[in-house]
């Protein structure tokens, strides 16, 4: 197929890391099932990913043979469960290149991770201070900041978006200024698919002495993330979008920042000592992990990290890039279809949102569902992004390591059927 010969010594097409998608699919029991007698076509991984047998088994084994509470028992099971929990933390830390496993805080989800920072750092804001977000945030990176700004009198500001669905950085120097205390941005948009280039923003944040948080919920599962390389202060992501279970998310932060921050939730495990007259707090990560943590979920997340590593994040990222290029092409053949977000497979992830003529996304989703094709419809918890483009709702197809081009073809066929039905 390749007509162009690449000179020797240059990277060749064959150098791209590959994996066998069919073999990967065989690890996911759910991908073998049918819905309404149709083959399941799961195109909703940005919502939640499916789970490989390895993750399901790791959690089942934990419950079957190693279950106990962590960090408080002297007995054998307690020690095994604690070791398993700590081991999962170490795996996650290595996965994002965290300098220390103490910087990895297990939360309920990415939303809780964002809320910890908003409340702990944000709680110290004063009138005149500014927080900067963007118009493409998930509600979980908008509402916590709105709440904290209401409470403290700080001002919430945001980056606008360009027509192509990228961050409008034209007013960066004015927007991020000496009054800015924290900038919290989505790294990969869950609705537009945009991967934000952060270098200029990071440089400006450092210049004014603010903090930078990135919501990496849609990045870590698909291409990994290196917290040192990106020079950020905090990131949030979630387990269930990266082959792991629901009920566990991650807040990563610089250790010295975490240990200087006031706790968010109080309770057991997060203390140093408690007296009726006052309490001193443990250091991170325990500082932010009040109560019994999601132990089996951590074990599942650790297994998910192992699984992703066994395939290789570079190979996964490349697979998704090819799928995205294929899907952008295929969708452009559907008359009346309009894509919101970048229309080239560069600087974007494998999530594509669109409208189909005047047909409401609910109706599109329902027709697709009847054919076994599972997509998400609605505002995707990103209403401001919808408002920015003047649409109440979008249909979203999102891909992952187990997605195939045949599934994208099924999507396109389903869209044609929706058009026939509603035109």
């Amino acid at each position, binding site marked *: 197929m390749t007509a162009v010969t690449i000179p020797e010594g240059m990277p060749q097409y064959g150098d791209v890391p590959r994996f066998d998608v069919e073999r990967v699919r065989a690890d996911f029991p759910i991908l073998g099932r049918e819905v309404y007698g149709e083959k399941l076509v799961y195109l909703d991984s940005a919502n939640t990913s499916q789970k490989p047998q390895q993750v399901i088994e790791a959690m089942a084994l934990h419950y079957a043979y190693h279950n106990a509470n962590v960090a408080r028992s002297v007995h054998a099971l307690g020690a095994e469960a604690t070791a398993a929990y700590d081991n999962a933390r170490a795996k996650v830390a290595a996965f994002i290149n965290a300098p220390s496993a103490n910087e990895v805080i297990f939360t309920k989800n990415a939303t809780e991770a964002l809320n910890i920072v908003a409340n702990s750092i944000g709680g110290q804001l004063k009138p005149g201070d500014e927080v900067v977000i963007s118009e493409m945030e998930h509600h979980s990176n908008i509402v916590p900041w709105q709440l904290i700004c209401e409470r403290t009198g700080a001002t919430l500001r945001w980056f606008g978006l360009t027509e192509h669905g990228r961050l409008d950085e034209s007013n960066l120097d004015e927007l991020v200024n000496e009054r800015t205390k924290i900038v919290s941005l989505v790294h990969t948009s869950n609705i537009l698919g945009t991967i934000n280039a952060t270098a200029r923003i990071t440089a400006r944040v450092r210049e004014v002495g603010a903090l930078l948080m990135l919501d990496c919920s849609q990045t870590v599962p698909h291409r990994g993330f290196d917290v040192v390389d990106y020079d950020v202060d905090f990131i949030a992501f979630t387990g269930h979008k990266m082959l792991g279970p629901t009920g566990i998310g991650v807040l990563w932060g610089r250790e010295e920042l975490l240990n200087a921050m006031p706790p968010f939730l109080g309770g057991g495990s997060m203390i140093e000592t408690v007296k009726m007259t006052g309490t001193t707090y443990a250091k991170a990560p325990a500082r932010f992990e009040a109560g019994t943590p999601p132990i089996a979920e951590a074990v599942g997340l650790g297994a998910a990290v192992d699984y992703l590593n066994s395939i290789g994040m570079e190979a996964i990222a490349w697979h998704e890039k090819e799928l995205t290029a294929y899907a952008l092409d295929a969708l452009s053949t559907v008359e009346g279809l309009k894509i919101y977000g970048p229309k080239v497979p560069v600087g974007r992830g494998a999530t594509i949102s669109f409208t189909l003529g005047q047909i409401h*996304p609910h*109706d599109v989703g329902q*027709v697709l569902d*009847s054919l076994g094709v599972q997509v998400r419809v609605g505002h995707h918890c990103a*209403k401001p992004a919808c408002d920015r483009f003047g649409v*109440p709702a979008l249909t979203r197809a999102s891909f992952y390591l187990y997605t195939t081009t045949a599934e994208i073809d099924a999507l396109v066929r389903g869209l044609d059927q929706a058009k026939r*039905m509603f035109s």
Partner: protein
Amino acid sequence: MQLDQLYQDIILDHYKHPQGRGLRDPFAAEVHHVNPTCGDEVTLRVQLEGDRVVDVSYEGQGCSISQASASVLYELLVGRSVAEAMAVHAAFVELMGGKGQITPDEDVLGDAIAFAGVAKYPARVKCALLSWMALKDAVARVEEKS
């Protein structure tokens, strides 16, 4: 899945040719309802004369189910007494809450019996009810004022 159970011809017909759409004066009350899970919206006005519903006008954005349901509501309820309209309303709400187990009475519900299939799709029941809940709210507001 039997898509045609959900998208009956009556529903598609009302969707493509909505009855009574557009906001009109005069009106006794106006309400704005949203479906927070999907972002669909309806603005609905009601005009009463004595105990009679003389007009229901509406504008909004939403899926075929929500739009068709507003159109059917207009056809079915305008011209009736408030008591009759509320009786039909109750029958429609009951049908939607019936998980597909209720056989609708065509004498009471007219075209709205086409929504019987919608009741089997929990995710779509709220779409069908959006304008109906807005109407109930609007009538209640008129009655509060008087």
